[in-house]
């Protein structure tokens, strides 16, 4: 009798512990997989598999809730920085009243704006980064170049034949405006195709979608759309005349060059 009770107790204990072990290991596996997939994404976007540099024309269309559209034309240069944040320079061409206005991003805390009418460069404070860029649905933070892994903990949420879905949760203390991101990654390109951005209250704030295209040996996001769910506005950024691996000089990504007048 006593032996039977002992055996039964052992079976019950195993019945409780084993599933817990499997759940925990599944969670651990999900997180590992998430990190692995995010690394794949970042390798393509800002890591060793990304183009060394990109130069392109960009057209930004800002659509209001009422359907009116505003168009901005820019020139964009990006340089991959394997040991730090990527560098990015944006110079406006159109409309005429903001021609030569420029934005230079050298790092998470290093963003500069050039105002041609005042002939002054101003550094943007980090608390401004949540603000809208040129009245678009992209914030300055959205246009930063530092990737996700430094600020978010990824976990594989689900997958199907064509995509992985990652859940990225903001790390404690990370100065990012989104508490959670649901990222859908295309398995074929290794690039995100959809990002659902959630605010601090857990509500869906914005949805970013990407169309990726082949440029040389790389997959590049050619068209990015950001939709503000609550405001019912949308901004699209489309790249044209994309050139990669042009061996762009570091001199391009300087405050000096930020001031230069540009034309196509």
């Amino acid at each position, binding site marked *: 009798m006593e032996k039977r009770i002992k055996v039964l107790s052992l079976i019950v204990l195993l019945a409780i512990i084993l599933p817990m072990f499997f759940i925990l290991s599944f969670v651990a596996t999900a997180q590992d997989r998430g990190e692995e997939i995010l690394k794949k994404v970042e390798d393509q976007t800002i890591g060793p598999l990304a183009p060394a540099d990109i130069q392109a024309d960009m057209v930004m269309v800002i659509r209001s809730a009422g359907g009116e559209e505003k168009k901005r034309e820019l020139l964009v240069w990006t340089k991959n920085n394997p040991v730090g944040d990527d560098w990015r320079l944006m110079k406006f061409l159109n409309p005429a009243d*903001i021609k030569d206005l420029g934005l230079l991003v050298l790092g998470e805390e290093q963003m500069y704006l050039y*105002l041609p*009418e*005042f*002939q002054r*460069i101003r550094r943007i404070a980090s608390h401004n980064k949540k*603000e809208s860029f040129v*009245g678009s649905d992209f914030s300055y933070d959205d246009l930063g170049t530092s990737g996700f892994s430094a600020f978010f903990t990824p976990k594989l949420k689900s997958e199907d034949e064509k995509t992985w879905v990652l859940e990225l949760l903001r790390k404690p203390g990370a100065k990012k405006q989104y508490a959670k991101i649901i990222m859908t990654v295309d398995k074929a390109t290794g690039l995100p195709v959809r990002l659902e951005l959630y605010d601090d209250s857990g509500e869906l704030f914005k949805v970013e979608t990407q169309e990726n295209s082949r440029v040389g040996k790389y997959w590049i996001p050619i068209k990015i759309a950001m939709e503000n769910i609550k405001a019912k506005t949308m901004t699209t950024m489309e790249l044209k005349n994309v050139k990669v691996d042009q061996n762009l000089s570091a001199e391009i990504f300087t*405050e*000096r060059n930020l001031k230069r007048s540009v034309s196509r």
Partner: protein
Amino acid sequence: MVVWLTTAWVFGLMGIFRVPMNLVTPALPVLLIGLGSAYGIHVVSSIEQNRNQRLSKIAWLSRSTARVALPVFMAAITTMVGFASFLTAKLGLISNFGIFAGIGVITAMLLAYALIPASYYLLPDSRSQVKEHPASLFNPNLFDRLARQVIKKYRLIILLGVVIFIFFVFWIPAIRREVNFTAYFPPSSEPRQADLIVRDNFDGASPLNIYFQAPNLRTAGVLRIMRRTENFMASLPQCGLPLSAAELVEELNEKMNDRFSLPETDGQVANLWFFLEGRDELKQLITDDFTEGLVFSRTSSSRTEFHWKLRKDINSFLKRELSTSFKEIRLEGLSKKEVAEIRKKEMAYLLREVEWLLQRYAPGSIFDRKEAEKALQEVIENWPEVSDPEVLAAFQKEIEAYIFSPSFDFEISQKARRELVGKLVEMVKTGNAGNNVLAGVLRSAIPVSLNNEKVAGQVVSTLSMRLKEAKERVAVEKANQKIEALIPASARNNQDFRRRLDGLLFELSDGFVVLPESLTRDLPPEAMSQARTISFSRIDQSGLPPALTQLDHYLFVSQLQSFALALVLTFFIMLLLRKSLKLGLISITPIVFTLGVVYGFFGLAGIELDYVTMMVASVSIGVGIDYSIHFVHGLMMGLKQGLSREEAIRAAFREKGSAIAANSLAVMLGFAVLLLASMSPLRTFGGIMIGSMFLAAFSALTLLPALLLRVKIK
């Protein structure tokens, strides 16, 4: 039954026609119940009083009903006319109330004629139980006694009536009008408490705006006009600090360029606007196409009298300052004398804004404007030159920050940079600061290998801009020093005032001037030939204070119109039906007396006239005239039967007195229900109507018979 059916049908009709309920609607069932029961009382009273076993049931009922048909009809028509007068009201909710109350009155009358006799017909015949005295709420002897007293003392009654009337009418001009929705809520209620908190801590909750419409509001010139409007609104008492797109641009300019002022070119405005795009507060201040914008403020007071003053002051400002077009003048290329002349005009124009700001930051203080003008004229006449030591010092500081920064356009050694700074300062010291001169200095400092004409051009442009800014900064400092002593201490020590004052002085010192056309007529033709004109399609005040004052105006006009219409129509109906001018006039005397006393009481007791209590006159006329109608009818019936005037009056008291008293009691009890309303205007309305109905009935049973005795009637 009459009452319930009437109420149900009227509200059913409101539902069919989708007429919404509002603040005034709760008074409707109360009114219909009172009126419906009044007609019913008279019909029942007539039926009961004329019980006659000798007649068939149908004959008895039809004869009884016929006896009251005319007075009930007249009462209903005059009451309906009283409500019909609401159709002149500009407020939809008042005119709707009038329409449905009128429908209710006619429905009640028809139902009283139809349902009551029909019900009596269907009930078992109780005429064998004829009582000597039909059931009555009041002792009939009471009215006999009253009749005797009135007949005996009719002269005294008339005299007392006149004295009381004159006394109360004297107080009518003291009536105050008030349209204050928050006061309608009980003091402990959430809306009232919230309003108090917002008023005490956040400059109030009532929005007050000045609306601008123009082809493009996002220009340097237009923004200065909006800023001027802001400064005017800042001077208004019990109003919060105003906000407009101009203020946002000033704030941004302060962050970017250390000056809380509006930039001098449209391009600079566009550059700063880059940062404002997408900000939520911008959407509340200007449309996306920049054609419509607001200067927004709030007021903490909800008093109608205050709102009228505010509206008047703003209208006066709009007429005086903004009903003209404006000129944008560029000072570049003009002679020193011409520049000084224009600056003096601008200075006098901007000093008005300083006065407004002082009304806010140092209220009640005295600002010697003449002295300030004199002091600033001195600054203008001794405007800083590029060679002044202070200008040079400021210029040197600026260009050192520029040339020694990593972003300097030419990559030259530190030594070369120091030499460049030195050469530039030396050259400017001699008074030579033109672009060609600066370009020459630059060329001499930059190695040929690095020289690039386009880049050099950009550098020269930047240096020139920095020099201009240095000059402006020094001019502002000098101006500040000159008028410092004239600024009251409380404003002087206020950081917000200081930055606004500096902003105005920066605008005085820059090369861009905006003036109303009337001030530019005697300016140099050369300056005016290039001047651009600014004009607005529309400038209006909007927000709660103008809306409430307009409501108050409608209230006043509607009150007068409905009162006059009700009285006149009622008089004509009486005249038509009685075919006697004297009788028509005497019939409306009790109600005129009642209204004189009621409205005089408003003034005496400080009861404010609002859009609920404004209905007192028309409702009182419509309902109160019923008592006169019934009494006069009773009198005429007696006179027709050959009774003397005194006997006829006694008969009228006997026949109608109880019904009139019961009628007025029913109506008063109906209005008494409103005393339990949660909204104060309904309680006030209910209380006033109780008093009004009592007075109307009392004067119909005292003053009216007294006048009928005094005046000869055929």
